[in-house]
Structures are given as structure tokens and as C-alpha cells.
């Protein structure tokens, strides 16, 4: 019977990890407010195309669907990594983390492609208020995902070199919260930005 990360944790350390998780939730709430305000700004400015291109002309349902699929699957694979963590299966944790990373990287790759394409056809963030708010909302989410990718890479390193210790497990749980949170934000982006823009 393998010891999980949570055996042999002192009460004081357990308290510490609980505090870290709670603090991380508070950070996510402040981030949620940032995104809410970006959404509100987007909704105020969606009509401000300044005579330039609108969402209808720019958004591609296929790419948005692809990005959504990649991100949603990556949340699933991260969940599988978390399951592997709770049964202390180190190689499985590494595998699922790596797949999550790949899916997330795919998402970023598609998004960068989308942004480059739009800029190339003169629909960059400096074209109009609508485009400024679009690029900032979607771009901020993309920036968060990129930081998440870096974090996944660091955690892969930590699992490789330290194993599934209690601090490593605590960090993985917080990374999970972060990753799933970003997934939820993306679902809202898809619903508020891409779908109405295309319908």
C-alpha cells in the first residue's frame, strides 16, 4: 500500500495547506472580478466598431469550437492527473500533466493564430474600441492560460525531482483550481463573445 502525499502530514502543516488553498480561492475571486469587468467592458463596447470589422466578419466558429474542445479536454485530463495524485501514482500524474500541457499549448497555438490573422487583415486591437475590448478580454484569458502552462511545466519538474510530497500535492491542487477556473472563464467567453458575435 503506497503512502499518499497526505499521510504523515503534521496538523500544523495541514492547517498551512488549508490556508494556502483558501487564500488561493480568494485570489481566484479577485481574478473573477477582473474578468467580470472585462466582460462588462466588452458588452458596452461590442457595438463600437468605428466603421471597421465586426465579430460577424472576424470570428470563426470552427476555430472557437476547436479551442473550446482543447480546453475542456485539458480540464478533464487534469482531473485525471488529480485522481492519479490521490492514489499516489506518480507516472500517471506525469502522463496526464503532460497531456494537459499539450492540449493547453494547442489552445494557445490556435489563439495566437487567430490574433495574428486578425491583425494581418487590419483588425488589430488598435482598430476600434470593440477590437480593443475583444483582444484584451480574450488575450487576458490567454495570458492566464500561458502562465498556467508554465506552472504545469514547473509542476512536472517538481513531481519528477521531488515526487508526490505533501507540498507538491498542495501546489497541484491549487494549479487544478486555477486551470478549471480558466476553463469556466473560457466557456463564458465562448458564450458571450463568439456565439453572439456569429449569430
Amino acid at each position: 500500500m503506497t503512502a499518499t502525499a497526505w499521510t504523515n502530514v503534521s496538523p500544523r502543516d495541514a492547517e498551512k495547506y488549508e490556508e494556502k488553498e483558501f487564500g488561493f480561492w480568494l485570489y481566484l475571486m479577485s481574478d473573477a472580478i477582473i474578468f467580470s469587468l472585462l466582460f462588462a467592458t466588452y458588452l458596452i463596447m461590442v457595438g463600437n466598431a468605428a466603421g471597421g470589422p465586426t465579430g460577424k466578419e472576424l470570428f470563426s466558429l470552427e476555430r472557437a469550437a476547436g479551442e473550446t474542445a482543447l480546453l475542456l479536454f485539458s480540464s478533464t485530463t487534469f482531473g485525471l492527473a488529480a485522481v492519479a495524485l490521490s492514489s499516489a501514482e506518480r507516472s500517471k500524474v506525469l502522463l496526464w500533466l503532460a497531456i494537459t500541457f499539450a492540449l493547453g499549448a494547442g489552445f494557445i497555438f490556435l489563439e495566437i493564430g487567430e490574433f495574428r490573422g486578425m491583425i494581418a487583415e487590419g483588425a488589430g486591437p488598435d482598430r476600434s474600441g470593440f477590437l480593443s475590448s475583444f483582444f484584451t478580454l480574450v488575450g487576458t484569458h490567454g495570458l492566464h492560460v500561458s502562465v498556467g502552462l508554465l506552472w504545469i511545466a514547473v509542476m512536472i519538474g517538481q513531481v519528477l525531482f521531488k515526487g508526490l510530497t505533501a507540498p507538491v500535492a498542495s501546489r497541484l491542487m491549487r494549479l487544478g483550481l486555477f486551470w478549471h477556473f480558466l476553463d469556466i472563464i473560457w466557456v463564458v467567453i465562448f458564450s458571450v463573445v463568439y456565439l453572439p458575435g456569429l449569430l
Partner: protein
Amino acid sequence: MIDGPVLDPKGPIALAERDLLFKAIAIMMIVIIPVFIMAALFMWRYRGTNRGARYTPNLAYYWPVEILVWGVPAAIIIWLGIHLWHNTYKLDPYNTLDPSVKSLQVEVIAQDWKWLFVYPEQDIAVVNELVFPAGQPLSLKITSDTVMNSLVIPALGGQIYAMAGMQTRLNLLANEPGKFWGRNVQYSGAGFANQQFRAVATTKEEFDAWVEKAKQSSGTLDASTYEKLSKPSQKVPVTHYSGVEPNLFDSIIAKYIHGDVDRMPSAAHAETAAEPAE
């Protein structure tokens, strides 16, 4: 020049605003005066060296006091709230004053660092001088061709921002003829301190004569003159123009909108004088 515009208003709007100010101060005294009296009294009577005063170190709660300190301010706030609500509707800058009388329409364009007043019905324009007949409602439509400004004529009351691509309104009235000053009060750059204009309420005859004289001016405010005028300048002397580029005001707003859906405050306002049904 009037030097006490708020305390000595020259129009009904300013007068109503001042009266609300005084009324509110009077109502608040119900709370303020007891605070001063108690502070002074307690500081003196309960100073530590005064062994004559009663000392109850554990007196930490007394429900009549709680009811008083929550209840009385709450009641005052409700009373003030009624005045607030009523007067905010009554003194909305967008309210047309006295719909039975035709108001004088003036279009105002804020520039760096001066004010341009266009009289569309008289087809004249003036820089840094607003002349209007006393006793007739003055209806201002306001925009900016530069940064955010704020128009106020303290003796007549009211204040509203001027913003590019948007139109705001301010309705004022002067009871009697007189000379006032108005200015921008939203910091707008190096020339801000000089961004003042003359506001003159005249008799009907004087106003008509002034319009006639303005119509004799050699300059007209066509597109290229406007272009030159809108460049940054300070302490621009009063200049009259006979003849204004048609739809100048609307075109300045349109310049910033590019045909986008109107999302501006004018849409949120009903341009009527009636108070909404309460």
C-alpha cells in the same frame, strides 16, 4: 463681477440648489450639534482628574442609546432622502424649464481652452461670450471637441460635463439682467485656469440688438475657420461670427462616432419638463 455666486444666485436653478443646501445643513444640525455638545461636555466632565464624576468602566451597552443612535440618523436620512429624490428630478439639467415659453437654443462646444457658443436659430456664433435674454429659458446642448470639460455658470446653477462624441444638456434661467462668469471646472491642461467666459443676461431688446450686431461681423464660422479656431489657444478674446457652417454641432459629434450605435446619455433622458410619475 459677482463674487459670491453660490450664496447670491441669479437664477431659479441656482436658487433651488442653494436652498436645498441650506435646508440640508439645517436638518443635519439635529445630529451635528449634539455631537459637538457631547464631545465638549464629556471631555470636560469625564477628564481623569475629575474624581467627582461617576465612573462606570464596564458600561458597554444601553439599548435606549442604541435605538437613538441608529434611529435618529436613519430618520433624518429618510427625511433628507425625500428632499434629495424630489429635487434631483426637479433640478435635472435636462429638464426644460417652463415648456410654455420658447427657450433659447444654444449649442456649446468646448475647445482647448475656450468655449464656442453657436446660436443655430440666429445663425451666429461667439467665442467666450454667452449672451441671452433674462427671463427666457436658456437651453444648452453641449459637446467637446477636445478632452472632457465641465460647464458651469455658478450664479445660475447646474453643471454638466462636455464629452467628445456625446451630447449633454443644461437648462438655465436668469431672473434679471446681469453679468456673470462661467467656466470649465474639469481640469483639461495647461490653459485650464484661463478657460473662462462671460455670461450676460440682457433685456429682450438688448439681446435682439446684440444678435443684429453679431450678424454684421465680418467673419463667418465655416469649416476652415472652425479648424483654425479649434487649435489650442488661451485667453481668446470675444469673437463674433455671422453665419455658421450648417450642422456644425452635429458634425463635431459625428466626427467621433463613425456611425456606431448611439450609446450616449441623451438616450437615457426624456427631453421633457414633466417630472416622471412617482
